[in-house]
């Protein structure tokens, strides 16, 4: 974005625990051990950008847990979608899933999670950052991407550059079904994988019938689920490539759903892989919440995903 017109759009007054710049993710370099990155909840990220009038792939802020306070450095159009983190604009509740016009000098603050875990803030025209390995997706563990190129989360005093633009289309309507209730018990769709038959019959039954609780060991690498112990005839395997949403089961029998910052290869047997939209939903769940796993056919998952993507093309 080097020669594009960019200006400081927002200034970080208080950073909160984890706010990261994310475009669609880093692709084509996973063979080098570089992870995918990108928004943990692709659904809310895509809607935030769409509401702000941005094309698919534009970098937006992923705000986890809240705690972030931003000073508006110039007049901007923006949209916040995803979790309700108690966002306010100059102390007044900020409407979510809507296009909003903010003025220089105003203050945008995210408090704590009311419902869901991650909110996405998109600015019309997009945040501007130098791509690293083809993307500005921020991966803290690798020290790659983000607003500064070095994988740093936002910190107090940071200035965020934007390529401001006035959207040339009216704000789209967000249908009710596109605004998830992150507090509801969810059925996460999973495509069964190659080792599914290696799990004991009772474990397979449990996998798709038990209630799973989101463990507090949950981050952008993966989310551990707590429930009945799943037994597999395979303990470990020779390491192999891992896709987004892969649900691996280590010898302790507690599954881990792998998200955007997962390691690129791993050697535990897998139940299968969550669909991209199921992985996105899981990323909104707070520890202790209940989820169910449901088996889904590739055909159904494909038509769901293509319908989701069509809105944003």
């Amino acid at each position: 974005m080097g020669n594009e017109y960019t200006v400081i759009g927002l200034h970080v007054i208080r950073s909160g625990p984890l706010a990261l710049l994310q475009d669609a993710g880093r692709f084509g370099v996973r063979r080098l051990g570089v992870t995918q990155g990108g928004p943990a909840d692709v659904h809310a990220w895509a809607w935030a950008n769409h509401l702000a009038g941005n094309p698919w792939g534009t970098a937006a802020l992923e705000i986890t847990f809240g705690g972030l306070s931003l000073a508006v450095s110039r007049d901007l159009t923006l949209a916040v979608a995803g979790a309700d983190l108690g966002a306010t604009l100059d102390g007044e509740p900020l409407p979510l899933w809507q296009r909003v016009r903010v003025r220089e000098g105003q203050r945008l603050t995210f408090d704590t999670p009311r419902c869901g875990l991650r909110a996405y803030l998109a600015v019309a025209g997009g945040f501007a950052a130098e791509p690293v390995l083809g993307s500005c997706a921020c991966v803290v563990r690798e020290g790659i991407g983000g607003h500064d190129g070095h994988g740093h989360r936002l910190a107090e005093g940071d200035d965020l550059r934007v390529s401001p633009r006035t959207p040339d289309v009216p704000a789209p309507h967000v249908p009710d079904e596109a605004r998830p209730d992150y507090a509801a018990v969810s059925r996460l769709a999973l495509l069964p994988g190659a080792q599914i038959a290696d799990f004991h019959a009772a474990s397979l039954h449990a996998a798709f019938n038990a209630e799973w609780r989101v463990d507090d060991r949950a981050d952008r690498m993966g989310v551990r689920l707590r429930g009945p112990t799943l037994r597999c005839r395979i303990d470990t395997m020779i390491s192999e490539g891992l896709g987004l949403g892969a649900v691996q089961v280590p010898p302790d029998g507690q599954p881990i759903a792998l998200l955007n910052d997962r390691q690129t290869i791993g050697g535990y047997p897998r139940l299968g892989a969550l669909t991209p939209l199921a992985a996105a939903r899981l990323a909104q769940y707070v520890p202790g919440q209940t989820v169910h796993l449901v088996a889904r056919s590739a055909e159904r998952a494909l038509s769901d995903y293509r319908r989701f993507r069509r809105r944003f093309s």
Partner: protein
Amino acid sequence: MVESKLPRIESAGLDGWLVRVFERIDERNLLWLTALSRRCEAAFGRALVDLVPSYTTLLVVFDPLQLSPSQARHRLVELLQELTPDEEGDGGQVSDLPTWYDTCVGPDLPRVADHAGLSIDQVIECHAGTTYRVFALGFAPGFAFMGLLDERLEVPRLETPRQRVPMNSVAIAGRQTAAYPAVTPGGWNLLGRTTARLFDRHRDGFSLLQVGDRVRFVPVDEETFESQGGDVTPMREDA
């Protein structure tokens, strides 16, 4: 395992297929995996998102907006039917990694020597005497899993991984060896440190080592190591 003939194409989610080509780790696997990777690049073109080769498998990630999983699978079936391995000696660069082997930067040399019943010098000679192949990259950007290590040096990982392994540490675990491209936690046994720049975001190709490459560790003394830009800061166990 649900047994069927290899290669086998296994589901890896909505946007991926895992091609399982072999059951066991072997250098000769690379001749097939590198050939398969190249064929996938040609056959999938712009619909290809990522390829992740590793030891016995290749994960093929494609764009599900351009190809359905069944279309992608069909392409893989077709190209597997006419796949031929690369020639022995083909493909893969040869990299020499200048390495200072010393207990100061390789604190596990004595432990490995004890375990192997060798002197420290013999351990160094043995580690540096093999040309390794890169089987996979993973764990961190540019971290290359190389093998096979001489079986005399086969030592398990540390029981408690270190929180901070210095950048460029040369290490072994099991029948494998590696060099750490960045400071990370790690449980491998440290033998020394290299001057090679293993991962560089400004370099074409980014990673010095790629799957299929041949790698030699070349022992250098402290003076040479330092003059080549090596970091002589001793490993601190409390760090």
